[in-house]
């Protein structure tokens, strides 16, 4: 399957390459010249499927460049990138924190780092409840379910969100991730911001102990929800399969997760303040009121240096990052990993960051 995707990607790339020849050099800086060398990255396992698509696609553009990516996890990826003589880039489900930014000036010099939101994925609230095909949930209800205070499906809080549904008295089994994960972090961030009075455990990567069922990885959560009558969990929207997907209350409406709505909420969110010009770390606007936006999203970043010591390395990173954020790259990731392609506006900002990548003087 990976092979066919890779083939499809390189084919579509070839097609696009041909149509792009007239001009528009902005997003084809990479294909202007043939590069060669090794590019080493590590980090988020959430990005792994997308990264495979990018590796394959980029390989079609630059056959002599070998991009390797070790999905060690976001924390490990950031650590390896920041270490002396570390990896060339990192993939991370959260942006660098202040301490890491300080380390980054040692790693990358005063020019600092770029952080591009290269991977956006909607997190669906999936459930398994026979006879209920549509489920609407407000943030406080979701928080109540996952903190264990709402224990049956016919709870008044759920009934209030779903006046037309006939809800059984089945017990609710909330399923969460057993491993540390960026998905959990983004999900709890949503609960914390929208229903902070119900969800009191804060923003965590590791589910607070006590209550609920724990399952390993996205697949584990999906399997557990499938297996358990009355189970509910949160997982990548693309992996939900035939499970029920709850609509989440945004403003006055209930919104289902979709690629467009996920990309929209990121595009309309503010950047984290006090960061470098090319640091596009986003503070996702979880409390959005717009019904075009779906606020439970995972945003993952491509992190690298603005300035590399070595001209070749700078060219490689520039070309690869340029491909990742390009329409083709985002499309390939969407196909392989089910992610949401970033908006054009975000792409423009990211492109200017990519253009800024240089080799040190």
């Amino acid at each position, binding site marked *: 399957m990976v092979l066919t995707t890779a083939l499809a990607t390189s084919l579509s790339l070839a097609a696009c390459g041909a149509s792009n020849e007239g001009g528009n050099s902005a997003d084809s800086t990479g294909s202007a010249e043939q590069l060669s060398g090794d590019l080493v990255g590590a980090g988020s*396992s959430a990005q792994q499927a997308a990264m495979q698509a990018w590796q394959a696609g980029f390989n079609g553009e630059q056959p002599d460049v070998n991009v390797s990516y070790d999905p*060690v*996890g*976001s*924390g*490990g990826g*950031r*650590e390896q990138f920041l270490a002396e003589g570390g990896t060339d880039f990192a993939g991370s489900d959260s942006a660098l924190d202040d301490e890491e930014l300080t380390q980054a000036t040692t790693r990358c010099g005063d020019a600092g780092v770029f952080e591009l939101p290269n991977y956006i994925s909607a997190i669906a609230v999936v459930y398994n409840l026979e006879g209920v095909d549509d489920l609407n949930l407000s943030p406080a209800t979701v928080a109540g379910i996952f903190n264990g205070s709402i224990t049956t499906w016919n709870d008044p809080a759920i009934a209030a969100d779903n006046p037309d549904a006939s809800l059984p008295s089945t*017990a609710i*089994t909330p*399923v*969460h991730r*057993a*491993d*540390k*994960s*960026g998905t959990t972090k983004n999900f709890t961030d949503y609960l914390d911001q929208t229903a902070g009075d119900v969800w009191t455990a804060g923003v965590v*990567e*590791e*589910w*607070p*102990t*006590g*209550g*609920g*069922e*724990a*399952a*390993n990885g996205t697949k*584990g959560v999906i*399997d*557990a929800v499938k*297996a*358990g*009558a*009355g*189970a509910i969990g949160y997982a990548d929207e693309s992996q939900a399969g035939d499970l029920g997907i709850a609509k989440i209350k945004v403003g006055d409406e209930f919104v289902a997760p979709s690629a467009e709505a996920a990309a929209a909420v990121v595009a309309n969110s503010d950047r984290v303040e006090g960061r470098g010009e090319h640091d596009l770390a986003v503070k996702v606007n979880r409390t959005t009121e717009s019904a075009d936006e779906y606020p439970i999203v995972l945003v993952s970043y491509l992190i690298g240096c603005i300035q590399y010591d070595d001209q070749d390395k700078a060219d490689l990173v520039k070309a690869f990052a340029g491909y990742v954020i390009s329409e083709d790259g985002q499309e390939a990731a969407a196909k392989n990993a089910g992610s949401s392609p970033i908006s054009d506006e975000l792409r423009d900002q990211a492109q200017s960051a990519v253009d800024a990548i240089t080799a040190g003087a």
Partner: protein
Amino acid sequence: MTTTDAPPAPPRPRRRPGDRIFAGSATGAGILILVVLAGVAAFLVSEAWPAVVAPAEDIPGGDGLTAYIAPLVFGTLLAAVIALLVATPLAVAIALYITYYAPPRLATLMGYVMDLLAAIPSIVYGFWGIAALAPALVPFYGWAEEHLGFLPFFAGPASVTGRTMLTAGLVLAIMILPIISAISREVFGQAPALHREAALALGATRWEMIRMAVLPYGRSGVIGGAMLGLGRALGETLAVALVLSGSGGITVNLIGQSNPSTIAANVALKFPESTGIEVNALIASGLALFVITFAVNMFARWIVNRRADFSGAN
């Protein structure tokens, strides 16, 4: 001195290079294992130390290292004890059947199948547990909650996915079954024929013969096998990580959805995304497991040595 008058000692056997190489490499191997063990212990202690001295709020969970590790130790022991309680009687029965009841050809076949069970990788047991055993046990858990709910083990609410401590314990039981039964089979087979025949000659039935001649002789072997199995159950990682829904604190409720996780499974699940002090905390939990396994082995050795005096072997 008399020694000077003694006839000259027989000439020392000439040590050939082959002998020396063999003796040296054997000694080296013996020392190596000690060095490796000491190295592992030193690594664990040095890497765990930052977590030991860290302020309580830096440890995952925020309540200090003891509060972090205690439920894991409890879960590890609980799962292993369930496995042992289920597997040991079964393994002994299998071993007795193979050695004394089954027709020889069937016994050979069964011995082969049991050894095969030991060769199945643990992840396969994990998948089997999560895909087949757990769903199959869900109705039982519902029944147990309803009818046996007065026992703290079945207090419920019962899990709807079946990924409970009892399921994990049963998967572990099946994993350690071949180890215990293989060793039991060996020792039962070696029970002195004279004892057995004497028992039969005195008019004992086959069961009485086994009880009087075989079981006392094999007791230390069974215990040794059980401890080996316990060692594997304590350290089993993947199967538990897959099967167990480890999301809670200390509880003896075996059929609920929130169970204490085990040390090895917790490390496997949390390590990839951990950084800094969290890694140290995980390694500290690994150190705890190291100590537990060590204690179990010492205990087993002590039992085996003590029992050896009372068995029919002498």
